[in-house]
């Protein structure tokens, strides 16, 4: 009988920059079971909503995650706006869409760099992050921040981007496509990369749905589900379809994110062309009373903000379900059958953000 060994993996590991711990049960080099442990960085941010004015809490929401901070703030604002029946100006909706897609681009490029680093392709890592810097520069030019945008607010957005700058951004992104394609072609075509990712951590189509997977993890297994299709912000006026792959392995999850990069450029181009003139915020009066589940699509997948208010300036409850939390069960399904050497790469393919997940 093969001897079983338990290998503790994380919360600190050279190729896993996220505080998750796994007890990996191995038979020789093969993982047969994985038991996760999180809870190392639980900050209780949801609880803070009871002590922060509902207008000001957007600052906290943005700090739940340092990568998809804008979409966290946006989803919080949508939850409050729906409770208060606030109709955000159309121009603000478009700006929210543009910043959401820039967030997606910088998140996906960050992930690709980490992935290249994990499978030992250092130059690819550096080139990917060089491209990410260009996206961060656009974000900095339009919001003043590179990590925390501080642009979403209840009732609209804090800043406008003038039309000529929007056109310049769209043009810049178009010009980045050639360089982006050169880099992403390495991920898609390079033999060593394919060898490292193909067939690793297969998540079957039925398992992905059953286990509640979201985002690229779900779409790479063949499900055309994308929360942006709900039509929040300006997505209702944008022509796009969810990007899917069918195999459900690490390579498929990588390809979905790469294709989404180019899709984001197209969405920004459409939004820049369609954005109407007008105000970017409305004055918010009164206090929220009611409840709502806001759902948006972060780079990692669907995020839920449940807000419940009782007519005071402090929400009774804010519940955040992040995409990483939803993808952990799928990860546990993918790990058995993989070799120990594949574990770091495999975990990265769900693009885990544990600080998001624990809030």
């Amino acid at each position, binding site marked *: 009988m093969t001897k079983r060994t338990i290998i503790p993996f994380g919360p600190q590991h050279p190729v896993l920059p996220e505080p998750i711990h796994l007890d990996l049960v191995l038979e020789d080099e093969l993982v047969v079971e994985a038991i996760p442990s999180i809870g190392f960085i639980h900050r209780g941010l949801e609880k803070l909503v009871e002590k922060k004015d509902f207008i000001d809490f957007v600052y906290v929401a943005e700090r739940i995650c340092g990568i998809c901070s804008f979409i966290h703030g946006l989803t919080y604002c949508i939850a409050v706006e729906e409770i208060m029946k606030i109709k955000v100006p159309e121009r603000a909706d478009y700006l929210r869409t543009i910043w959401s897609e820039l967030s997606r681009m910088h998140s996906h490029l960050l992930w690709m760099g980490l992935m290249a680093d994990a499978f030992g392709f250092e130059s690819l890592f550096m080139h990917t992050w060089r491209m990410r810097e260009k996206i961060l520069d656009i974000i900095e030019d339009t919001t003043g921040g590179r990590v925390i945008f501080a642009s979403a607010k209840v009732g609209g957005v804090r800043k406008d981007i003038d039309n000529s700058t929007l056109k310049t951004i769209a043009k810049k992104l178009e010009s980045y496509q050639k360089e982006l394609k050169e880099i992403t072609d390495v991920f898609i075509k390079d033999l060593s990369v394919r060898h490292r990712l193909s067939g690793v951590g297969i998540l079957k189509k039925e398992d992905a749905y*059953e286990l*509640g997977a979201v985002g690229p993890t779900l779409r790479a297994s063949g499900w055309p*589900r994308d929360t942006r299709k709900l039509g929040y912000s300006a997505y209702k006026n944008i022509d796009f379809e969810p990007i899917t792959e069918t195999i459900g392995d690490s390579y498929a999850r990588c390809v979905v994110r790469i294709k989404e990069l180019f899709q984001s450029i197209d969405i920004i181009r459409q939004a820049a062309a369609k954005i109407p003139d007008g105000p970017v915020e409305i004055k918010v009066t009164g206090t929220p009373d009611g409840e709502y589940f806001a759902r948006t699509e972060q780079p990692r997948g669907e995020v839920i903000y449940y807000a419940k208010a009782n007519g005071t300036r402090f929400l009774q409850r804010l519940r955040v379900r992040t995409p990483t939390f939803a993808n952990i*069960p799928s990860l546990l399904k993918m790990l058995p059958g993989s070799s120990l050497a594949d574990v770091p790469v495999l975990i990265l393919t769900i693009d885990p953000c544990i600080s998001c997940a624990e809030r």
Partner: protein
Amino acid sequence: MAEQQKLINIEIKDLLERVKEFHSSGYRLVQIGCTKTDVLEINYSFDKNYSFVNLRITIPSSGIEIPSVSHIYWSAFLYENEISDLYGIKIKDMAVDYKGNFYRTLVKFPFNPFHNAPSAEGGIAL
């Protein structure tokens, strides 16, 4: 554009049966979350083809044990352990039970401050 959302209040005794219905109808479990008001509300959220439905059970602040749905939706064990750790709600037969060690919080049951308050009988309410 507000998404249409459905909320169905149910009794605890009907929970497993209703969740099974959602499962067999092809709904995805989106999340389980708890809210503390005067009572504890637990929302079970489901989605199918972008149609969003919530089942809600309401329980008093202490003393009630609820059944786990993790044998219907395996992924529910994460949400249930979270609720158990943050609110001190007892959940019976979870597929994976962390026994209070899912979150390492300094304060026990931080989202349910009345959990550790003395009960009318002089003991600790649970």
